[in-house]
């Protein structure tokens, strides 16, 4: 304990020094991008970094007279690593902005570094509501679980669904999703028959699905991290839940565009709520998808890639506003209230919470020209994160 404390003290002292003497290299703004590039969440890292690179390719690498230098580091999805890398990036490499963060615990672990070193930190993927509360220097360009779970509840209640079983993964984001879906659905007169939580390391969904089937609800609301989601989808179909009249409604993580196409027929008809679909119909998105596929071997961009792309859009716009000044307070002041048109639609940064305000779309999985796509059919415009809105 003593060791760790001394180390921390030393690190913060070093950080304090750094804050007083801005690094000599004024011409370049270094951005430290920390992502899980290996390990179980590597697909997150791959998508986010591809989004970031697509932005730099399409918008050039200079902004407000400064050159943008990207330093990508792999934390393998382990929180202590994320924190250590963040410290190294700030102290040794002189990174002015930190970005990335695939999962909630990874983003949380960096919050003290961001606060002490006054480094602007852009969360591009992690989705638990409380992250932006952890430090004044954190902002977000993905979305929060409450933000896109709540509209699914609204939609379900308005479309003749009366009884629902919720099934979520038993960790931060899952509990967020369960809470806000339940709250909204109940307030609109719906009934939650049962709330099932699935362990994060879960090889077989059979028992949980059987439980859902035996409860005979109108629909089952699901949140699962994207890779597991696809496995769930197959077992859902195999167990004949659809024939038993149980509809599948979910957050968009389950029908992740990256793997949606390989899920095959069972996925068709699933209703999900999320902030981005590859099939989103706008000129900005068409241009984005085209540029992204070209640069990435025809891989489909998913919501995480857009988090990365917009994270860069945010950094560029903020630097434009501060005329290249990337110091914490100035940068964060510029971030607040920024708004732009993203591939996902209009977005802005809430000046009070530094979290993103965006449209949430309700989509249905359909076969479009031989490819499965999330097709949007209803829009909830300009939603704030409900958790922080309620706290006020």
């Amino acid at each position: 304990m003593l060791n760790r404390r001394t180390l921390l003290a030393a690190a913060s002292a070093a950080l304090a020094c750094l804050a007083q003497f801005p690094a000599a290299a004024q011409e370049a703004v270094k951005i430290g991008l920390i992502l899980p590039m290996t390990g179980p969440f590597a697909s997150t890292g791959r998508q986010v970094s591809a989004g970031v690179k697509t932005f730099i390719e399409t918008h050039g690498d200079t902004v407000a007279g400064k050159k943008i230098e990207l330093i990508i580091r792999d934390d393998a999805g382990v929180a202590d690593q994320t924190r250590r890398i963040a410290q190294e990036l700030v102290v040794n490499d002189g990174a002015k902005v930190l970005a990335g963060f695939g999962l909630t615990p990874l983003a949380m672990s960096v919050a003290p570094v961001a606060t002490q070193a006054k480094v602007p930190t852009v969360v591009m993927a992690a989705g638990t509501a409380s992250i932006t509360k952890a430090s004044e220097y954190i902002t977000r360009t993905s979305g929060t679980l409450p933000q896109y779970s709540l509209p699914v509840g609204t939609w379900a209640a308005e479309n003749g669904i009366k009884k629902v079983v919720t099934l979520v993964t038993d960790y931060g984001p899952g509990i967020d999703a369960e809470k806000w879906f339940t709250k909204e659905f109940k307030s609109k007169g719906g009934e939650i028959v049962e709330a099932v939580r699935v362990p994060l390391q879960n090889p077989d969904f059979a028992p949980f699905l059987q439980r859902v089937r035996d409860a005979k609800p109108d629909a089952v609301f699901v949140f699962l991290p994207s890779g597991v989601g696809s496995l769930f989808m197959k077992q859902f179909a195999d167990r004949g839940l659809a024939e038993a009249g149980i509809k599948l409604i979910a957050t968009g993580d389950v029908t992740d565009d990256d793997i949606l196409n390989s899920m095959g027929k069972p996925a068709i008809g699933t209703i999900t709520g999320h902030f981005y679909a590859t099939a989103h119909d706008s000129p900005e998105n068409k241009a984005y998808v085209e540029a992204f596929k070209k640069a990435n071997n025809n891989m489909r961009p998913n919501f995480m890639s857009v988090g990365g792309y917009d994270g860069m859009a945010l950094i560029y716009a903020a630097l434009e506003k501060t005329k290249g000044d990337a110091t914490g307070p100035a940068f964060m002041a510029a971030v607040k209230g920024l708004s732009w048109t993203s591939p996902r639609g209009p977005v802005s940064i809430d000046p009070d919470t530094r979290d993103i305000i965006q449209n949430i779309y309700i989509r249905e999985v359909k076969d479009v020209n031989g490819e499965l796509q999330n097709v949007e059919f209803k829009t909830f415009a300009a939603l704030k994160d409900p958790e922080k809105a309620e706290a006020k």
Partner: protein
Amino acid sequence: MLTILFDGVAYGMLLFILACGLTVTLGLMNFINLAHGAFAMAGGYVTVVMMNRYGISFYWCLPAAFIVSALIGLVLERTLYQWLYQVSHLDQVLFSIGIVFMAVAATDYFMGGQQQLINLPPELSGRMDVFGVGVGRYRLFTIIVCAALALALQLILSKTRFGSRLRAAVDDRRVAMGLGINVPLVFALTFAFGSGLAGLGGAMGAEILGLDPNFPLKFMIYFLIVVSVGGTSTVSGPFLAAMLLGIADVAGKYYVPAIGPFVIYALMIVMLIVRPNGLFARGGR
């Protein structure tokens, strides 16, 4: 109720096929091979590549998965493993865990980190009603294949000449060699066979358990539970252990979801206290 039992049996069968290769190497060859899951993963990826890239029928993929994994096992046994039979268990563990990490990284590099999905032939997907009990077709298929394999394995080990040579080689390597048994050959074949079984398990499990580069790490714990509860001196021990764990896991998660994941560990602890040498341990081992 019966559906839960059925799902539990199917899951247990799958665990058995995945773990029984480990029983063979651990129990019969006295080698702790934590990289066992890597062979299972190889089988899974063979299936995925054959089905998704080349559109080969699922039924051909299963034997292919067995053969490819067995060949990989054979090559690795000849080049790497055979030097480690005589070293301490700790070295074996370190060596094989190293192989696991290399396999995980290599798979991630070549195949990508995402979940791999296969599309089963239509006659294996969906479910049917048998006397009012909902039965998943694929799970039924799994049970049949795995049960046949378990039976065959038991017969090979107890009734054939190869089986008795293998048991002799394990019990006393020097005497067996003195009797003219080609021990390295027996071990190599056994190792390859065990790896092949794992590959088959991986191929069959891809549909139910999922498949991504972290497969060997994710399931290592399950293999080890099966082998430690079942004991390593027989085939029937791990078989029953796998059944028991499969049913307990599925039933636990169904009836008491709040503590569901904990059930198998509790069961393991109880079993290890009651029968520390495995379910059917011979006295004195």
